[in-house]
């Protein structure tokens, strides 16, 4: 039995961005267990300061390729609140549809391409092309359709084009939406059910580990909160999204170019598992059925189950997308111009559930419509403290399993959070100090 342990995984693979896992144990005492964030800082404040409100969402979507849509939605909401720009019901429906497309895309990418190789004990999705071709083809088909929602509604799934402050520069045609609807019903729903079957057969590979923590997500009375809602903590309940600073409390730690966050404890969980724990009562039957099949219970405290929670909520994205498309088609699509006449110049906050958790943007504009201050807080940054706390509990529990097994479980733990390290580092850079 080893009571000395020295693990150093440099540039962890199959995550977005650059991070190292570092664990040291000496004579049975855990000296260090942390995720080091070594992503190069990008200093986004230099890009935002003095920029026109037309550019804010164009710039912030470049913080992250995977979350570009989420950044754009959050940025637009913050700008619209700051400038007093009202948007139409059609705009809100199209944006909700976009958030579903982006969430679906990201959750499927994570489950199949980044997490599943661990369950099947291979190094990437590529060997599965030969060994499990039907699974890879299914994953690609699901991802394609999710991306097509982005391409059709926003002009481009990565770094969307048409969503601008006050609305859209162009809207999809009824025919395009009908085609998306047809493929959601004919392809996506059966593919989703097959995904649940595949995951069920792999569920034994998900490590058993429990650590109760604080779960923070948006919550809405109307629906499973993704596009908007209040901030909801499993410890202290709901507050308005304008009070996000109280729920995040960013601070710098030396081992990370991304700042850490905390609310009521030393760390908290943001992301699909937090959304599930706080909002499972708002999910559709397809999602609840999948949760039951996959053994996901309300009040789940196993962080590895985040991947399962992502798959479960993908069903909600499909169901609600169909409802939104029906409403858009029923109301008739209107070729509206975006409302870009500011009625005020001040501060605005946007909060959106993106795949990895709540994303916050806050801007302050001057009277020329240029940004004087910006603050953005990223889900992965919010989760970093929770990941470190998980590691500190996990390592002593599995110390007898040998270095290779411990390393794999630590890598899987980090991957379960689906971290988006570019985001966490790049967004932290958007803070201007008062």
């Amino acid at each position: 039995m080893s009571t000395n342990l020295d693990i150093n995984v440099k540039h962890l693979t199959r995550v977005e961005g650059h991070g190292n896992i570092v664990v040291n144990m000496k004579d049975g005492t855990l000296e260090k267990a942390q995720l080091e964030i070594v992503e190069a800082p990008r200093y986004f404040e230099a890009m935002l300061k003095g920029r026109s409100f037309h550019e804010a969402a164009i710039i912030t979507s470049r913080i992250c390729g995977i979350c570009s849509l989420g950044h754009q939605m959050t940025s637009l909401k913050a700008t619209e609140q700051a400038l007093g720009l009202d948007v139409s019901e059609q705009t809100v429906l199209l944006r909700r549809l976009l958030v579903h497309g982006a969430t679906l895309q990201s959750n499927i990418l994570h489950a199949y391409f980044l997490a599943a190789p661990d369950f099947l004990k291979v190094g990437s999705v590529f060997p599965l092309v030969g060994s499990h071709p039907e699974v890879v083809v299914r994953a690609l088909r699901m991802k394609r359709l999710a991306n097509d929602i982005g391409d059709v509604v926003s002009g481009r799934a990565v770094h969307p084009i048409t969503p601008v402050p006050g609305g859209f520069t162009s809207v999809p045609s009824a025919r395009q939406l009908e085609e998306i609807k047809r493929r959601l019903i004919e392809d996506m729903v059966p593919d989703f059910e097959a995904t649940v079957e595949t995951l069920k057969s792999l569920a034994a590979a998900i490590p058993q580990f429990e650590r109760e923590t604080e779960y923070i997500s948006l919550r809405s009375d109307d629906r499973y909160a993704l596009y908007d809602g209040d901030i909801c903590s499993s410890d202290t309940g709901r507050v308005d999204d304008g009070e996000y600073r109280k729920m995040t409390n960013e601070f710098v730690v030396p081992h990370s170019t991304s700042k850490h966050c905390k609310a009521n404890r030393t760390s908290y969980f943001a992301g699909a598992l937090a959304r599930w724990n706080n909002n499972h009562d708002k999910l559709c039957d397809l999602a609840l059925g999948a949760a039951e099949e996959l053994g996901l219970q309300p009040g789940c405290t196993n962080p590895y189950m985040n991947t399962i929670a992502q798959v479960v909520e993908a069903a909600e994205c499909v169901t609600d997308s169909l409802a939104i498309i029906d409403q858009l088609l029923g109301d008739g699509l209107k070729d509206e111009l975006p409302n870009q006449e500011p009625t005020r110049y001040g501060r605005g906050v946007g909060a959106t559930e993106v795949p990895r958790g709540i994303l916050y943007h806050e801007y302050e504009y001057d009277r020329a419509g240029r940004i004087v201050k910006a603050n953005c807080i990223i889900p992965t940054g919010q989760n970093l403290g929770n990941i470190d706390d998980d590691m500190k509990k996990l390592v002593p529990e599995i110390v007898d399993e040998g270095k290779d097994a411990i390393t794999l479980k630590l890598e899987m733990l980090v991957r379960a959070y689906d971290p988006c390290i570019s985001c966490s580092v790049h967004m932290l850079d958007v803070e201007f100090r008062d």
Partner: protein
Amino acid sequence: MAKPRVAIFDFTGCEGCELNQLNFEDQLLDILAHVDIVEWREAMDGHADEYDIAFVEGSLSTPDCIKRIHEVRRKAKVLVALGACAVQGGINGVKNTHPIEEVREEVYGEDKYLFPTLPALAVSSVVKVDYNVRGCPMTQLEFLKVFTALVLGKEPIEPEHSVCVECKLKENECVYARGMICLGPVTRAGCDAHCPTVGQYCTGCRGLVPEPNLKAMEEILVEHGLNVDEAWKRLQLFNANEIEGVRS
């Protein structure tokens, strides 16, 4: 003939260009049939000692980036820069227009020396780049063209005309006529004028055409009653390194 060995690397950027490679859902299996992917941190475990083609995403902005890019260049027969950050420094270049100490202090405060940083550079300002795939994110169509040419042993061709040419071919209404600033006249084509086609202005993400007529662009802006300073500011967004010192 052995399949080309391909490696993909990310430096300072958003990884959207890499993501766009995983977004070739319809072509991914065909691509995989023609090459061996030997290293790609975002998608797979493992490292390789040499490769025929290296795709490089992101700009170079830390001492570690400089060290890594030399290593990639040594091991690669052909190096392709992927996307605006790698090709021309891209959006990261904007930080170069501010004093570096000020930028670091604004973000990290008194902890600024914990994290080293350099001006954000295009890959070609540090090592030789053989080919470019431009755009933010990289234009997927252009990637497939460059990829196919390289696999077939042919020379990829880079367009030298402006986005306006493609926009006219699409029969779009001119963005200037709609009262918006547009960077199409000085921006390199190859995207099929996608942004103007869906109602947005050209943001200049593909970099400048060779010998851009910036004077003429200013004249068009004035003619349409648009703000010349604002246009330069927007041009800077993806091209800070390229236009540094150009405007007198």
